[in-house]
């Protein structure tokens, strides 16, 4: 589904991604972890073309991201993304946040979009908040709405960019629970996260990045059992102390 081929990216002279190659198959859940500055957020933003890259290519369900002729908007309509800072649209009520993409991009009717939106809102347990504004919700609630907003577009895969890093500890689980459910239902997911508990539970593979490179790319059991690289071992030991 997602095929990352030898992607390199520079900000001016500074190289942020170096020859990254990996893939995510349909139904797979891949967790990307690494120290800050390792390029993991940048990499995932390259997958839906939010960040351009200078070398290599990324193919998402047959569509090449690097091809200048590709209509990125059309592609993004089918790839869901959840952001670290939720990024709900503050001037719209929750219902409108959920329906605006469906109406304006997928050309669904207002009723259809609303029905779908409310259904998803119910699934994440927030039906009562439908008419509120994002500013009136807690972080955890906003992030769950953000997930519902992405799901409302019926995406073929979901990208998560540190979805719980901006949350207070007591709200992390409510969001992770939603993500676990999603994984169990067979959604193709690529998640940048520090939450190793989540990785252990539902990930198929774990990717470890350091300084713009993919240092480790292993099945979950292998990664947690005996990571090959020293960097990954160091990282894991620090992270797992929590």
């Amino acid at each position, binding site marked *: 589904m997602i095929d990352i081929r030898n992607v390199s990216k520079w900000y001016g002279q500074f190289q942020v991604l170096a020859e990254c190659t990996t893939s995510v198959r349909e139904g797979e859940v891949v967790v990307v972890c690494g120290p800050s500055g390792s390029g993991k957020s940048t990499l995932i*933003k390259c997958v*839906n073309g*939010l960040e351009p890259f200078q070398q290599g290519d990324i193919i998402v369900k047959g569509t090449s991201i690097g091809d200048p002729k590709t209509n*990125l*908007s*059309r*592609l*993004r*309509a*089918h*790839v*869901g*993304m959840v*952001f*670290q*800072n939720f*990024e*709900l*649209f*503050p*001037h719209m009520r929750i219902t409108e946040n959920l329906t*605006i*993409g469906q109406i*304006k*991009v*997928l050309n669904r009717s207002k009723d259809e979009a609303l029905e779908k939106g409310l259904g998803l809102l119910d699934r994440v347990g927030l039906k009562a908040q439908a008419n*509120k*504004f*994002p*500013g*009136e*919700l807690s972080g955890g609630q906003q992030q769950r709405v953000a997930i519902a*907003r*992405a799901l409302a*577009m019926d995406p073929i895969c979901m990208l998560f960019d540190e979805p719980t890093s901006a949350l207070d500890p007591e709200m992390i689980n409510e969001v992770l629970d939603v993500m676990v459910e999603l994984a169990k239902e067979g959604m193709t997911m690529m998640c940048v996260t520090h939450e190793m508990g989540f990785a252990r539970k539902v990930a198929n593979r774990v990717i470890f990045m350091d300084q713009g490179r993919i240092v480790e790319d292993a099945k979950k059991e292998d990664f947690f059992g005996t990571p090959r690289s020293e960097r990954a071992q160091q990282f894991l030991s620090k992270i797992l102390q929590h």
Partner: protein
Amino acid sequence: MAYNWNWEIFLQPSATGEGTYLSWLLEGLKWTVTLSLSAWVIALIIGSIIGVLRTVPNRWLGLLAATYVEVFRNIPLLVQLFIWYFVLPELLPRGMGDGFKQMNPLAQQFVSALVCLGFFTAARVAEQVRSGINSLPRGQKNAGLAMGFTLPQVYRHVLLPMAYRIIVPPLTSEFLNIFKNSAVATTIGLIELSRQAQQLVDFTAQPYEAFIAVTLLYLLINVALMFLMRQVEQKVRVPGFIGGK
């Protein structure tokens, strides 16, 4: 000070026989308000376009917009007015130039002042719009794009609605400024409020009453506008968004 105060001068019929002096003031007020409001509409439209252009990825559009802003901000308003009124008709193709000069003088003055004020203020509105858009978190644009919005859609549904709410206070300032700046039109003879003040000084022996009345009218305009903008600010406030700051 041996000055004869005579507040009833306003109710007296004017020396030219056209209405009372009060009616002269009100005429001036009418032109000030009409000119300012119309110019504000132009300024908002052009200013928004230029402001948006300064934030889009296209370098040439950005440069064009930046040039517009620099030109209109670094030349005095009075000079700009004279250029629109005296110079432009000479530079237009013969037909248009002559057409302008044959218009009713009041119309010539009004149109020049309108275009001048509109374009001048647009440069300032553009800067506000630009800073409003730039003050939004980057993630907002990304969230819009990630959903499949094209860039114009991102501006229309995500960036501009919030940017405008954020810049209501500085825009209010510009709105007030346009009313004050309209006084510059007196130099080309437009019968706006400050010109009527001068007319009253010329025709009556009561300059202080005239100036005080006109000053009060300007203050009144200020108060009315501040009230109006406060209503606007209340209406567009986003719940939970801390003061829109």
